């Protein structure tokens, strides 16, 4: 898949006659599926007896055009961007890390366990640093088994990472309820990091500083994967493990490295969400952001800058959708339908585009 997307994009730049055609082409294969997905999902709303224009209008108003909503949207971007960084590394290296939700949760548990405890002995800055690093480390560790199985036994990582996510969701609950329980509350949750000690907000707004971390993560990942020798090695492993071996690369080791980096970012995403927004972790909390970020990363064709744009609009959709659930009575599950339509229509557009080019 990585190969086919890459070539499509490259050819798109090479064989078209001018920048105008290239731009029109990009708009067609990107905006086309988005519009089609909005229309198709709108039909679902219509079938449920909801006015799609009212719904979309409300979502846009709430998630994009109100100052409060926009701040929430930008804050929500932080974990999503880190997850996008995680997926870009993995997918460009040909590894299907579908376990980012489990890695995210375990990272979140680590931060929620470390930060409220460390704050009693360390200054706030150091606490945030250690808790975030711990989240990334534990996230990476949670991917170790799938990584070793894939690297040395050729066991399909789609299955193992999915299994580790199911395992991780229960394990996270177990840790919260049995090990890191806050004795001071009746709700099963960890101790809470005081608001004053959380990630700083930006310029007097309520936007979490995690946004900066997320943006940096995506940009760095994009540049490393596209502009450095290390990135080229990883991409070679992804596109042809055989060629990589002939080039003298240590394929199993690089495979494990890809898992560790990818899962590290996923764990960091969980850490940022706890350290920036929640301050603690309640048993049963599982936002499952991961599976929804996958289509966004595909839509962006594994390009970090494009991913930032799509994550922004998806965040607005989530924030608006959560509000619409309360106001209009359409549960936020609708976002799943929209994302699914987007993913399928995107693949379809890619196919049609490919065929058209071959014919022409």
């Amino acid at each position: 898949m990585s190969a086919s997307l890459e070539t499509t994009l490259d050819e798109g730049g090479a064989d078209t006659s001018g920048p105008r055609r290239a731009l029109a082409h990009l708009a067609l294969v990107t905006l086309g599926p988005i519009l089609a997905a909005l229309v198709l999902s709108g039909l679902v709303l219509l079938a449920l007896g909801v006015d799609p224009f009212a719904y979309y209008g409300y979502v846009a108003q709430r998630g994009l055009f109100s100052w409060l909503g926009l701040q929430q949207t930008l804050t929500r971007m932080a974990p999503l961007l880190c997850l996008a960084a995680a997926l870009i590394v993995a997918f460009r290296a040909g590894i299907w890390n579908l376990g980012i939700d489990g890695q995210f949760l375990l990272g979140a548990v680590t931060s929620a366990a470390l930060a409220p405890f460390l704050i009693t002995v360390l200054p706030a800055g150091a606490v945030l640093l250690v808790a975030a690093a711990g989240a990334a480390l534990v996230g990476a560790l949670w991917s170790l088994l799938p990584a070793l199985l894939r690297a040395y036994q050729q066991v399909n990582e789609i299955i193992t990472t999915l299994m580790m996510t199911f395992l991780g969701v229960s394990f996270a609950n177990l840790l919260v309820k049995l090990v890191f329980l806050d004795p001071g509350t009746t709700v099963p949750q960890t101790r809470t990091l005081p608001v004053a000690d959380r990630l700083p907000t930006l310029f007097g707004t309520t936007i979490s500083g995690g946004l900066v971390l997320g943006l940096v993560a995506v940009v760095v990942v994009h540049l490393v994967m596209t502009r450095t020798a290390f990135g080229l090695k990883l991409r070679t492993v992804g596109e042809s493990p055989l060629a990589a071996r002939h080039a003298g690369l240590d394929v199993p080791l690089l495979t494990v490295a890809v898992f560790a980096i990818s899962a590290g970012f996923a764990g960091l995403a969980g850490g940022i969400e706890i350290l920036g927004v929640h301050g603690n972790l309640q048993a049963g909390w599982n936002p499952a952001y991961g599976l929804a970020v996958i289509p966004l990363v595909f839509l962006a064709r594994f390009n970090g800058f494009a991913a930032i744009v799509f994550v922004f609009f998806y965040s607005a959709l989530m924030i608006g959708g959560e509000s619409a659930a309360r106001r209009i009575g359409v549960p936020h599950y609708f976002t799943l339908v929209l994302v699914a339509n987007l993913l399928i229509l995107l693949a379809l557009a890619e196919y049609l585009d490919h065929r058209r080019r071959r014919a022409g």
Partner: protein
Amino acid sequence: MEALLTAAFLTALLAGAVAAGVPLLLAGLGEQMSEKAGVLNIGIEGMMLMGAYLGFLVAFESGNGALGFVAGMAGGMAVAFVMAILCVGLALNQIVIGIGLTLGVEGLTALLHHFQFSTTYPRLPAAWRMPVPGLVELPVIGPALFDRHPLVYLAFLLVPLLAWLYRRTALGLTLRAAGEKPAALDVAGIDVATVRFLAVLFTGAMAGLGGAFMANVAAGIFIPFMTGGAGFIGIVLAMLARGRPAWVLIGAVVFGGALSLTTALQVAGLNVPTDLIQMLPFAAVMAVLVLYGRKARLPAALGLPYVRGAR
């Protein structure tokens, strides 16, 4: 320890293993057919969930249990049909489409459930049971295995039937060729796409039936996201079974047992955290993959779309 060996505990464990294992068995057998034909069917989770939803809806509205299962199969097949058109017909990426379909069905069924049942949470009456005369009198095994819904017996009968189909018939050979060397099948004059299309539809039917069993027999109610990864376990079962239906059966009962251990332990008066028990089946999958992962052989052309003339 003695408490664990009482008849009540063993009956509860075995009965639970069968109730939780039958959907896994159906999903695993269905996935096996797809994989044999060369399609990695990640959308099976969505097919199960659609089967659970439609199966429940029709059984509840019509009051007819059998019609509910037909609807469940149809629901699974409808999702499979979309998958087959996109992945077999147009040769789109099987993983991307599989995830997309699963996400879409999760969202759609949760939405529909919200608008239809979220205030009433209706339940179906207890499922029909068909005791097997004589065998039902046996201690432990009798009530656990031979006093069940007819679909349980049917699911078990499918195992030898499919084994025979794969080993002894031309159809079985055709399926294997579609997964191992599609080009050879093409040369022999059989359309690879048709074989794979039908295999995916069969997977949808089995997954849908498994989902309907979950909702209508095991739970008696439809809950959003109720399949909870059963489809993915089905994929693992098919991977580990290396094409043999009997191994899918063994795996399904073992994982079903792990899933139902909570209830059985409560019967035995032991209180183990639910979260720990819920980890068991997935931990078991990982343990099995660590031990036998190297042997989990998959068809050579699995996951690769077949385009005539392309290399």
